[in-house]
């Protein structure tokens, strides 16, 4: 980067550039926006960033990101603790919650098996899921990974790990296009996929 740009500016541009989907151009634009914006704007951003790590943790039950542990969903006595939806990302929890059609609890894997990108079963919260099912409370595991090679491989792997543990295993109904993300599914489609789930 050019020497004409002061170091604090380059540092922020570089930090922004490391975020997914942010190229060098967007990173510069955001940085110069903050330079011109009132001081409160950047201070609020800095606080929010600090709080993000300091005040969040994984829920020890479902591994969703939470402030309190266990998370509000796991702690909710109205939720059906016997039905678990296994999802790839925290944003998938939000998508399913938006439907209002699911009264069970979740298990967040934090990714999908993608050997080529160096993500194997041990890099996901699969062992934790197995332990959870071993406790014998869970009656149904709904595998709600994304449709497509990696999500399907993850589903099949989990299915293999959980076979013989006494829980019913189901998968979201087809109807979500292969290659798309559950995160982006509209509520109608997702509700239909949930309702139409079948045994695997």
């Amino acid at each position, binding site marked *: 980067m050019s020497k004409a740009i002061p170091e604090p500016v380059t540092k922020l541009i570089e930090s922004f550039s490391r975020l997914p989907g942010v190229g060098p151009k967007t990173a510069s634009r955001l940085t110069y926006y903050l330079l011109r914006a009132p001081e409160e704007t950047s201070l609020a951003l800095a606080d929010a960033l600090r709080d993000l790590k300091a005040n969040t943790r994984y829920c020890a039950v479902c591994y969703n990101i939470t402030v309190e542990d266990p998370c509000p969903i796991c702690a909710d006595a109205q939720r059906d603790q016997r039905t678990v939806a296994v999802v790839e990302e925290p944003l998938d929890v939000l998508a399913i919650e938006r439907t209002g059609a699911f009264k069970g609890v979740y298990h967040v894997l934090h990714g999908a098996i993608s*050997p*080529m*990108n160096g993500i194997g079963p041990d890099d996901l919260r699969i062992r934790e899921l197995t332990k959870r099912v071993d406790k014998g409370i869970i009656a149904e595991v709904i595998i709600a990974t994304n449709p497509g*090679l990696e999500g399907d*491989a993850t589903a099949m792997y989990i299915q293999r790990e959980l076979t013989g543990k006494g829980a019913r295993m189901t998968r979201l109904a087809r109807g979500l*296009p292969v290659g798309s993300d559950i*995160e*982006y*599914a509209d509520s109608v489609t997702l509700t239909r996929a949930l309702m139409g789930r079948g045994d695997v």
Partner: protein
Amino acid sequence: MPRPDRSYRTTAIILKRRDFGEADRLLTILTPEHGKQDVIAKGARKLTSHKMGHVELLTRADMLIHTGRELGVAAQAEMTLPLDRLREDLVRGAYAGYCAELVDKFVNAGFEDTRTLYRLTEATLIRINDVDDPRLSVRYFEVQLLLWAGFGPELSECVVGGEPIEPQDQVFSPGEGGVVCPQHAPRVLNTLSLPMLTLKTLRLMQRSRYEQVEAANIPQGPLDDSERILSSFIAHILEKRPLSAEFLRRIRRESAPG
């Protein structure tokens, strides 16, 4: 091959896929005539993306690509070969993923003529999808990919002394890139045993069409042995084992092949 004009249509195999930005994906594709490319598929993560339906790993698609300043953008994509069993069968999917990783690692990105490699890759993915036991097709793919990339191992002459190989058991040197005769074997470090039948198997795979190799009914022993030799050789060239190889080993341990 020169950089094509602003846009081009091509058939492509999707080798790799990463999320990119808000709702896009970055795809690594292998094409017959435009080499291996990274292209952005706009809106591909959304379920209602009209023009970008079905941008899915290890499928073949027809694409319209606009070349950008840095990255190409796939404006349209239509899946033309779904290869469903790669998604329905964990082991088949893992074999196919392994082959895709090898293509990704052995081929530099850029516009070049990749017709032969494209044909090999497409045929291999179809075989992994279709045949009862995909192992032979994966071995054949490894051998042919190495040849294509200029790493075909020397199998006729001793890589130390240069003399023709006699019909007897030999050793293989990943470092020297080929077979070493028993006499010269003590001079080379890190060799692997190379029984005569395995050497013949490797030569057959290097020199023949797949149909001929298939018709030869190679016994499992030399095939397993070829896997051992080829995976060491590939790991040596790449300076590490392909990431997919570990996952493949793991799930194969727990299930019957195929």
